């Protein structure tokens, strides 16, 4: 049986591990070839370990084990020249581009008064401007292909203001605006643009060193704690739960779904 995205090519940012790797593997399972980028370098200010070139090589190994092709390169979503080079190389090699998953992001937890200018700039440039770079630089290839699907990873914090994440919340809300703007302008090319809104996901970003930053902040501001509640009785989702939504939006099953906020948040945004 043909896969659900058989013969398509997907570009994925932040593809070295976590949700990005999971998206690459899920789309490859259903027949897509992959172009993957990741920073693979030390990220300042974050509490968790940064992805490495070994991580990206493991994504390559897992995709190739599925008998799909993958072009994987080290690139920073903030660096338009290197992004454009990888996209152009990938499309030249794999023939076209149908699917874009703008997944790369960082997360720094801090109270509003302890958020530095560095953290603000770094978060906005990666999580928001990086998504804009991804969409603007890939769109010409989707237009050339006669249409396609873009999935921009926002967050539950892109729909509601979760605490101690001012830069992250601002960037992720911004992604929703970006999605709406692109969905409007790219629709004439049959390009669909939607956002994905995960709650907590079991990835290296959410390791205990990240999560323990919440501890003293929630102790100091106990009223805000329940805002993190998921309606469903789980602490966090698995990357594959998010990938299943990406696959649906990427596939032709969602061919008339555009400009939509897709929550895979266990009910967090409805709490």
């Amino acid at each position: 049986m043909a896969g659900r995205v058989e013969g398509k090519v997907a570009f994925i940012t932040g593809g070295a591990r976590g949700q990005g790797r999971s998206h690459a593997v899920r789309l490859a399972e259903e027949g897509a070839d992959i172009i993957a980028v990741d920073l693979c370098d030390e990220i300042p200010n974050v509490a968790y370990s940064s992805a490495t070139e070994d991580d990206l090589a493991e994504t390559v190994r897992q995709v190739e084990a599925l008998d799909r092709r993958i072009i994987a390169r080290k690139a920073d979503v903030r660096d338009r020249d290197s992004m454009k080079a990888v996209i152009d190389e990938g499309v030249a090699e794999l023939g076209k581009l149908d699917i874009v998953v703008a997944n790369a992001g960082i997360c720094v937890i801090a109270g509003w008064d302890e958020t530095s200018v560095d953290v603000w700039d770094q978060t906005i440039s990666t999580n928001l401007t990086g998504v804009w770079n991804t969409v603007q630089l890939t769109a010409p290839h989707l237009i050339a292909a006669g249409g396609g699907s873009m999935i921009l990873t926002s967050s539950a914090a892109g729909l509601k203001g979760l605490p101690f994440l001012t830069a992250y919340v601002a960037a992720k809300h911004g992604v929703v605006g970006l999605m709406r703007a692109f969905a409007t302008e790219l629709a004439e090319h049959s390009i669909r643009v939607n956002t994905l809104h995960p709650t907590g996901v079991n990835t290296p970003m959410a390791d205990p060193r990240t999560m323990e930053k919440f501890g003293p902040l929630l102790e100091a501001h106990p009223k805000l704690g329940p805002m993190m509640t998921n309606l469903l009785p789980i602490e966090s989702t698995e990357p594959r739960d998010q990938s299943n939504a990406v696959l649906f939006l990427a596939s032709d099953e969602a061919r008339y779904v555009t400009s939509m906020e897709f929550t895979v948040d266990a009910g967090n945004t409805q709490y």
Partner: protein
Amino acid sequence: MAGRVEGKVAFITGAARGQGRAHALRLAEEGADIIAIDISEQVDGVPYATAKAEDLQETVRQVEALDRRIVAENCDVRDVENMKSVVEKGVAELGRLDIVSANAGVDIVGPWDTMTPEIVRTTIDINLIGVWNTVMASVPHILAGGRGGSIILTSSANGLKAGPWNMAYNMSKYGVTGMAKSFAQELAKHNIRVNSVHPGGVDTPMAQGIMNVEESGFTKGMEANPDLVGMLTQWLPGMMPAREISNAILFLASDESAWVTGHALAVDGGMTQY
């Protein structure tokens, strides 16, 4: 200095006490005359004490103490014919109609599996169809004035975000949010503006009543599903006085909001953003 709604006439439902009385007084302070209705008999199926005839008389006294005129009648919002006749009488006496505050409502709280068909029907009849009745009884009089007007539908924080153990109420209040948009679209060409207001928890006899009922629906809900308690949080500290909602009603009623229509105005201390 002229009041902010000087010389206008406002029709207010549920005006005997709580938010409705506060709206009557706030609009009267700023120069409006008032047509007020409320029920006088206990509403079947509502577990807290509903308004009494003497409550409405107290609203009359307080509005008259501000040197404004008021026409007040006991009338159930479910009885559209009676409501039409009260509005007609009020307009005959006070000369015009400019402002409508569809405020009357009930809230029967409890976990989903305690909701009965009677609870759902009573809530929808009063909170949703009662609001529709209010608008339908009023619009012909606003049209007759030829000056346009402002209709304010009291929805709820729970008309934008569902509250726990409040199934029937949520259904009715989301409906009110949609109704405001529909009327706003169709009445705009007559310069009639229609907006919804979304209060969070307000310190009124209804809220006190819900909290103080023995074996209240909230107690049952909290026992059954304690994870949801946080959803009742308002960011701002304390309990909101009814006058806070009246200030929003006044703004939407006045010409200061002449180009505001179809808008959902939350006055909820952040509850819908929690």
